[in-house]
């Protein structure tokens, strides 16, 4: 007897730690081959399961996206799913060594990014003079240099 726990997943597929809300639990006995990657299992009818899109199978220690739920004769539900590798191995993935080329929170954003399209033809211009004007006008604007016999002592 195996156990499957059903959830409602509201996270995108590429989110590692899914936001899942438990809905129901069911047990099942495999009558046919149950594939660890794309399991197909039959459980007793449970109205709640119909609202789920995600499940966890204890025996496989894996999480699954529910592909399809179909009603079966005998008040059964046939559920097909495929493995969510991210959630299933989230903790293991955390320890993986990676070379990250794009990130939401990079150390800095100064690396050239070809996804930001720069217009080569137009520019914004910001221009201004420096704030301080040390000059005055209207006074002595001439300098005359004169030779002379007068001795100048610095």
């Amino acid at each position, binding site marked *: 007897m195996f156990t499957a726990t059903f959830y409602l997943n509201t996270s995108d597929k590429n989110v590692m730690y899914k936001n899942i809300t438990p809905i129901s639990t069911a047990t099942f006995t495999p009558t046919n081959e149950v594939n660890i990657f794309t399991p197909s299992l039959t459980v007793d009818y449970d109205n709640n399961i119909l609202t789920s899109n995600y499940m966890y199978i204890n025996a496989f220690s894996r999480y699954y996206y529910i592909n399809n739920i179909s009603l079966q004769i005998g008040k059964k539900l046939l559920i097909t799913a495929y493995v969510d590798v991210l959630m299933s191995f989230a903790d293991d993935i955390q320890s993986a060594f990676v070379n990250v080329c794009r990130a939401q929170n990079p150390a800095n954003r100064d690396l050239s990014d070809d996804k930001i399209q720069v217009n080569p033809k137009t520019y*914004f211009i910001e221009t201004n003079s420096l704030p301080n004007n040390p000059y005055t006008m209207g006074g002595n604007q001439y300098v005359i240099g004169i030779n002379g016999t007068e001795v100048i002592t610095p």
Partner: protein
Amino acid sequence: MINTGYYGTQDSGIDVYNNTYYGHTINLKKPAWVASGSYIKQGSYLAKVAENPETIFDTIDTSIAHCGIGVKGDFLTWEYTDREGNTQTEVLTARYNHYLRSIHWLSLNRDISISIPAGDTVTVHFGIDDDDNYNSAYSDIDIPVWLSSFDTSSAYRNNQRCFSAIQYTDDNTPSYYHWGGGDTQRYAPNQSLCYNSPLIKYGLGDFVFVIYVECSSTAEGSNSRSVTLADYVNTSSTYNYINRPYVGRVYAVPYTWSTGSAGNRELSRVTGIAPSFNRKFSITAPYYNKVSPEKTGTKNFYFYDMQQSYGGSGSYNYSLYNIFCTSNTLNGTDWTTETQTYPSGVYDSATPVQTIHYYYVAGYNFWSTCGFGELRPVGSSGGYTMRTCILHIQSQDNASDLKEYAFEMCAYLGVFFSDRIVTATVDTTLTTEEQWKQAFTDENIYCGIIDSEGLTHGFYTHGQGNTATLSFGNDNAQNATPYKPTPFNPDVPPTPTDETDRGDLNTHLNSGSYATSAKYYATTETQITKLIDFINTYSPTDADLTSDFKGVNPSDYITNILFFPFDVMYSGAASPIYLSVLNTTAIGLKFNPSFGVTVADFGGISIDRYFNDFRDYPPYTKLTLNIPFAESVEIDIGEYYGHTLNIKSVIDFTTGDILSLIMRDGLVTKTVSGNCAIQLPLSALAMGTYQQTLNTLQSNAKINQVNKEANDVITVADTGAALASMSETLGISGAIANPITTLARGAAQRDTYIEQGKQIDYSLKHTTPSPMTISGGTPCNMAMLEYLPRYTITRCKTLNIIDYNTYSYTVGFATAQQGRVSDFTGFIVCSDVEFDNISATAAEQEIIKNMLKSGVVV
């Protein structure tokens, strides 16, 4: 314990050389670091050998303390075992609250120097106190670390002390060794404190290291001592350290010593721990009560400490570093063992258990002795014989933990040691030497291992699998020097700039004096006009012509006239403008030639980033500066983000040269040169030349007239008495011959002067002053839009409108970072992935990698 494969014989890889003063040296042929128990300069090798079967002799830094004390850094540090059994190392800077299983070593700064005036005797006690009740008596020290007294008759090298390991009696009474006058202690400049302690049961109390200095004399002026740990010293005659914990710094190179006249040499090596007199040095079992070791217990190991050698007696000096002096032997003069006996009866010599045996050989060249040639006969007054030995540890209880503990203590000390007993009774059919060789094989000769910095950690090694006999030799070099480890910093960054502008515009741009003959005036257009009018209307009077006025043209004195697009930035006193001695009555601000140059400060702007990404840098964003009177320059805007851009201009108002300084936070990063003045093309009349011409003409006219008049006189047809009278008037003596000819000639000359007079008169009427150019014009370089510096930042436009929040979450910003996934948050796209520990199947791993490469939210 580490056993690193010490191979103890020549055959197997290590030649052990013995030096009576210096302990052992080891030539390694196999990988290992081995403590030799001492060190020596020449011939001493501590080789870290790679996988090379050949002997590699790597001469060590001779200051290394192979004896195991080694060197240690800056502060008083200690290594201890806490109650959990973990080895801890700390820098002692305060009181501590530790429960200690054991203290491994203390390393104390050598900068404790105590200078003792002549005749004074000082006792210095170093110890460890476990409470606050240290009451200035050394006896209150719970565990004395080292006690010594010394006087000024001794020669102290740099007045520095070396501190030995613990010594205390069996009743734990602190004891000390007193060197009286005549004892000479020599020691290496770098000393250390090594504290190899048994378990110290300091529970939860404070742990204080105290330095207590006791002086024999309190007479004023006689007790001058300086202790470089002055912060921790009361400057009274008796030092009390109750409230003063220690901090010490050391180099830890134990010293050797010698007593008596034989010791009167420079010994820079380290071997010994200070000797003590008739007491033993205990290393007790774990959790041993510090009060009193059991003498006859079965679980104790004891190190015999040293006994002072004094002439003529049967006492011994032992060094735990394999050098000891003995003036006595037992069981003959040959290979023998030594069982310590104590007159005090502390130990029962009939009970050899729990004793330490120092094996030595007297007179046998296998061990050799006294390489320095000062072998003293046994028993001679003041004499001693140096021996070498292997420390032997024996315990009645061979419980492995205690034995290993004792081994560890020996290893800390860096001695050679063995647990093999060799007595003369092992095999009486063999010579002592043969017994010795048989007994000591690789397998039971141990030595402590030191690390590359010369520190021991209680590790030891011994030979393996080789029963070949030890081979010992001698090395007589006596020139070891203390060890100073050189730290290696492979990644020392370059010295950063200090971002200091050491320039001083006022100092370095001073124009200096121009005392030769130049004056500069700042003036207005009105005054310039007035000046020119003066020049053009100047008419020197006769008095001027005969005065000191030497110039002909006042305009000759003007060198240049400059026009600036702004007021000359000078506020001097107004004064009349003189051309030589002529007061033109025009007014100007006369420059003080030492006023230097003017600095115009245009202020600064802060340059901030706009996009906060790569677009803030060229070629997407550019910064251009328009420098008036010079040029436009582009500067790297990236250098200025987060900084202030300043511009200052240095203006020389005597030439119009302007040097603009582009600065970042006040530091000049770029300079631009230009000229901001216009040379004005002015001309005036050369009145002086004109006057001179007039003067000349007038003078010529007068001369001409005189000549004409003189010739007019000659035209009178005077004869006779009239002629004679005329002759008199003219000063002509004698008869005038041919008066008619003379007369005719005079008339002709008169006519000439008349004509010349007409010419002069014409010139006078038609002479005019000539114009001259005073100041040459230069092309106007004033075609600038403005005279204030202007910055222009051009920033690119972005084609795609970016919502950065969405962009970061869905696209992510470009980056190049490495690490584990757990180092990142949010959306990431990986280019390369390597799992460290994952239980997924291969197919799942592939999916995971692909997802990481396409982007996931972690």
